[in-house]
């Protein structure tokens, strides 16, 4: 077969047949170039981790496990316990997810399954614009508009209804853990919505058609054929949002109150890992202070990477598996 084609080629273009085959050098060079670029990203992550570890090495040796288990943060007395920050990051992210996940997934469902076609693209564009608001502007809006409003209306209302629980008791200052959680929720809404939307869109139409053929209503199609199919991927989207929530810095710093304390009440001010780095890095006058801040960075970096890896794993399982045995 190939001999024939070569002969034919000879017959048509004798001059070309005598030429050497085209060089593969370009292909190879491009392959190695892109490969090295890809590895640069990995290398960058490793270097950041190494740098953080090196910067905090003395603090790790000095405080050991106490660093993440004690809650006194007193740079003057060289006492560094990061527990309030870890707590603040965890709780504000948790509040953010509690608010953002139902809204995001419902919006994604609306945009892929229920909305009229003409309205879908404009809403998607608006949600993408929400992701484009600089976080410092969101924080400024949080201070001047959101917090006064929350303090005057929803917070007293919450306290009237749920004031008997420790979570909504005590005085309402304004800047507090709950406000921080709400601003983080606003910031993770776009990412969870768009990832969920992609996942719902990846559900094969065959699933929907089968459910419609059985006489299901729109909502039943969504619930039976789409949501159960996409469950794992949606969980991945949520974890991805968590990864984003943990690292949010500027807007949270502006509304959370920046007080290193662990209080049950969500109306009390808090502090997050990212905020303490942003606020205190320029004021870190002693070596140990700087080391402690680096260690906070290391904790935040580690947690964020772990969460993102988990999200990637979950997102991969939805695209790889589950499909054939679900249809049946």
């Amino acid at each position, binding site marked *: 077969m190939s001999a024939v084609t070569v002969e034919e080629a000879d017959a048509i273009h004798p001059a070309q047949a005598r030429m050497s085959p085209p060089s593969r050098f370009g292909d190879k060079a491009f392959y190695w170039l892109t490969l090295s670029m890809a590895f640069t990203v990995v290398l960058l992550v490793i270097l950041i981790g190494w740098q953080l570890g090196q910067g905090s090495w003395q603090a790790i040796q000095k405080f050991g496990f106490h660093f993440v288990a004690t809650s006194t943060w007193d740079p003057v007395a060289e006492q560094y316990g990061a527990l309030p920050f870890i707590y603040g990051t965890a709780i504000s992210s948790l509040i953010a997810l509690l608010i953002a996940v139902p809204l995001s997934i419902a919006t994604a469902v609306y945009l892929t399954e229920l909305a009229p076609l003409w309205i879908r693209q404009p809403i998607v564009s608006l949600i993408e614009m929400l992701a484009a608001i600089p976080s410092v502007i969101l924080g400024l809006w949080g201070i001047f508009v959101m917090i006064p409003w929350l303090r005057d209306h929803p917070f007293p209302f919450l306290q009237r209804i749920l004031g008997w629980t420790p979570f909504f008791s005590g005085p309402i200052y304004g800047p507090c853990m709950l406000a921080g959680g709400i601003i983080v929720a*606003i910031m993770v809404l776009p990412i969870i919505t768009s990832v969920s939307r992609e996942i719902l869109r990846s559900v094969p139409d065959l699933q929907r058609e089968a459910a419609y053929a059985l006489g299901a209503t*729109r909502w039943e199609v969504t619930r039976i054929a789409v949501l159960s199919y996409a469950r794992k991927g949606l969980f991945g989207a949520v974890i991805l949002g968590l990864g984003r929530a943990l690292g949010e810095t500027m807007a949270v710093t502006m509304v959370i109150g920046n007080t290193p304390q662990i209080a049950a009440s969500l109306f009390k001010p808090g502090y997050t890992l990212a905020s303490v780095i942003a606020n205190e890095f320029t004021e870190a006058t002693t070596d140990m202070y700087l080391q402690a801040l680096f260690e906070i960075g290391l904790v935040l970096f580690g947690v964020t990477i772990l969460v993102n890896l988990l999200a990637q794993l979950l997102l991969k399982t939805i695209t790889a598996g589950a499909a054939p045995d679900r249809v049946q």
Partner: protein
Amino acid sequence: MNMQTQRKDHHSWRKFKSALISGLTFCSAVLVIAPLGLVFFYVLKSGVGAVNLEFFTQLPKPVGVAGGGMANAIVGTLE
């Protein structure tokens, strides 16, 4: 109640539920977009009065002096 009306009732209940969920998810979409509008109008309302040619071309005046602009910050952002 005979079987036919029962089925019809059930059917309209299912349709109602579907419409209800559509409405709820629509509300959540509105809620998701709301912050965008609120932030945009707040920034516009508070900032639009300060925007003029001076704002883009002048350096900031000392504290307490009226006027001046943000040329340095604009250049710093672009560079």
